């Protein structure tokens, strides 16, 4: 199963022919590049938000990059993705261009939702990215439906549905887990348990905090994964996705991860103390992989610098393009409330 985008580019090199070890190195390099890319992108978003270039709500993923990078690596180009408002990492890792995402957050017509969705509602049919959903657990029924269509047409595709620990307490979570299991639907539930539902810690929102255990009660194959270890994430995601693709029914992965920054730009983050954040930073997924690859000689200082340089250039270009991009003309305000003539597939 080849990973979209970055990984493919590298496989064409001589290393690919040499077989596994180099492929593994390439894959790790790809995962590191993806995680670093997500982090730098969001750090730049903080600056832009402070300068009021980006407005509205913005929810950052910094700290959880391993889940997006690892899981997307396990998906194929025809698979579908449904996610939440904390979606920049998912969109980037899935292959939505940094430029289209940045333009969207600048509210420009070149944004991946024409500037109408903003940070919380990114859409991209090319990568079957069916958007962020700002209603907690609101995306789960959509994912079930996408999987239902695949099941009815015998398509061996996977629908990956991302949501947080907060969604597990929603009625829709219960309804969808039961329906997916009942109808044996090809959906991969990816629960990013970052230990806080906005300002409410895990133990103050769930009587039973072992979310994987909860999920298994629906007859769905479920297990927990260290969401701060990108290799653990990608291994688990690959195994689960394969099972789902070949008719193993829905699978549920509880990614135990952590967000370093507040719930959103508007959150004073008073509900946890700084020491806890520092504790989790010591298991930072980027530092962990960088250290490991340095120790095994797979990664040198200049490799990291080159990666940073390439990423910075990509982000700068995205920001400049977004600033220069046009706004959607007000005359188009009502367009697409109803479909234009063409009937969709």
């Amino acid at each position, binding site marked *: 199963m080849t990973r979209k985008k970055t990984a493919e580019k590298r496989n064409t090199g001589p290393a690919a022919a040499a077989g596994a070890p180099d492929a593994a190195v390439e894959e790790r390099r790809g995962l590191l590049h993806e995680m670093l890319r997500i982090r730098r992108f969001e*750090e730049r978003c*903080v*600056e832009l*938000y*402070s*300068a*009021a*270039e*980006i*407005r*509205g*709500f913005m929810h950052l993923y910094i700290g959880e990059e391993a889940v997006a990078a690892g899981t997307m690596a396990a998906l194929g180009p025809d698979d579908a993705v449904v996610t939440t408002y904390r979606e920049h990492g998912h969109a980037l890792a899935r292959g939505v261009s940094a430029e289209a995402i940045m333009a969207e957050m*600048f*509210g420009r017509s070149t944004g991946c939702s024409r*500037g109408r969705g903003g940070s919380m509602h990114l859409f991209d049919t090319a990568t079957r990215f069916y958007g962020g959903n700002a209603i907690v657990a609101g995306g789960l029924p959509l994912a079930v439906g996408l999987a239902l269509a695949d099941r009815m047409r015998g398509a061996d595709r996977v629908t990956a549905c991302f949501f947080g620990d907060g969604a597990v307490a929603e009625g829709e979570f219960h309804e969808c887990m039961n329906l997916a299991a009942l109808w044996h639907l090809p959906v991969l539930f990816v629960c990013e348990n970052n230990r806080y539902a906005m300002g409410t810690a895990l133990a103050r929102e769930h009587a039973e905090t072992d979310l994987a255990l909860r999920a298994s009660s629906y007859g769905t194959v479920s297990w927990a994964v260290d969401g701060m270890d990108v290799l653990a994430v990608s291994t688990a995601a690959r195994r689960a996705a394969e099972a789902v693709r070949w008719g193993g029914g829905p699978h549920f992965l509880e990614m135990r991860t952590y967000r370093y920054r507040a719930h959103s*730009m*508007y959150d*004073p983050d*008073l509900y946890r103390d700084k020491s806890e954040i520092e504790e989790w930073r010591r298991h930072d997924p980027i530092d962990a992989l960088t250290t490991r690859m340095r120790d095994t000689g797979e990664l040198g*200082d200049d490799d*990291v*610098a080159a990666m*940073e*340089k390439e990423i*910075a250039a990509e982000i*700068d270009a995205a920001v400049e393009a977004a600033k220069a991009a046009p*706004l*959607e003309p*007000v*005359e188009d*305000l009502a367009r697409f409330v109803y479909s234009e003539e063409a009937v969709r597939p």
Partner: protein
Amino acid sequence: MPDFTMPSLGADMERGTLTRWLVEPGDRVHKGDIVAVVETDKADIEVECFDDGVIDTLLVQPGANVPVGTPLARLTSPAAAPSAPPSTAKPKPPAAKPKPPAAKPKPPAAEPKRPVPAGHPEPERGKPAPAPRRPEPATPLVQRLAEERGIDLTSVNGTGHGGRIVRADIERATRPKASPLARRLATELGVDLHHVYGSGARGVIRADDVRAAARAPRRPAEPRPAADEKQAAMRRAIGRLMARSKREIPHYYLGTTIDMGEATGWLRRRNRELPVARRLLPAAMLLKASALAAREVPELNGHWLDEKFVPGDGVHLGIVTALRGGGLVTPTLRRADELSLDDLMSALKDLLVRARSGRLRGSELDGATITVTNLGDQGVESVTGVIFPPQVALLGFGRIVQRPWAVNGLLGVRPVVTATLAADHRATDGYTGARILEAVDRLLQHPEEL
């Protein structure tokens, strides 16, 4: 080296209050360091710096409330700083000056403007100008009724004893309740809603009521009911003006007969070559002669104001125009003395057509310095008019008639016209009055010079 500015910390944050600095001038700061605490409506939020550098000066003191983007501290580059570790040595793009918040995309077009029903012209509006306030106070009943129906008593014409406002006046002034369709039909059929019986609940007038009122037997010659009302109002206005004129102005009258032979002969010869549209009427010559004469006798061309004569700023002729349905209006022909006969003729035509169709502008109805009445057109030989205050003179012309006339001792038949003058004895006396009639006579003997 960009300044450190007040960050935007929320979707609707326009301003922020600096609570505390966590650094002082001289401190070395790195990208991402927390440098200050800002108070928002939710709580105090720690604010990070986005650049590496040294705090140079703190521009804003704690407690200050400033708009987003305001420079809070000036930074200098870490001149002698050790070479930055590779990972952080990113070439920083030239940070733009603290720009005003991104040009907010124009807010989506406000809801399409709600269609406001076109203002419906009230047929009743346009009542004649309110008469001056009645001395006698209205009765309590009338006060209450006016109060209830939101009517301004000064705008009501009192028809009671001594001009007192009585209940009937209030009824007439109240805006009748009618359905929109009824109100539209009333305008289209020229029905005055005041005279229509409302068959609907609480006397509401409905379409059928208006149709019935419109169908009521109407003799073609008899003016339309709405015209009655307007006619009566006009009659009252003219009556008041003439009464005041007679009361206040000591009139004296002069008259003379003018030989129109030269003038009418010249006119006929001239008209023969012209198409109908460009032919002149005798009236035009009479008006031009009057204007030129008024210029020669300025004492009669002006106004009597607070006991003294104010000469006019030009010869502006008030032209008495009879309206076919009865009543009259006096449009003003400005600077009549400077108009050629042709220009005067076309101006006269235009004024009279618009006067008759009620499309005169306010400015065309006043400002006359002397008035001419030409009722001769209606077959009367001699006209002695009543001066229009505050003017001081009025010229009148009768019909041009054939009369036996001695010219150079020989008897013949000549077309003649009787010209009269009514003048204000306070401003002038007979001697001056006579001079204007002589001037008119002399001018009419040389029509080609008019």
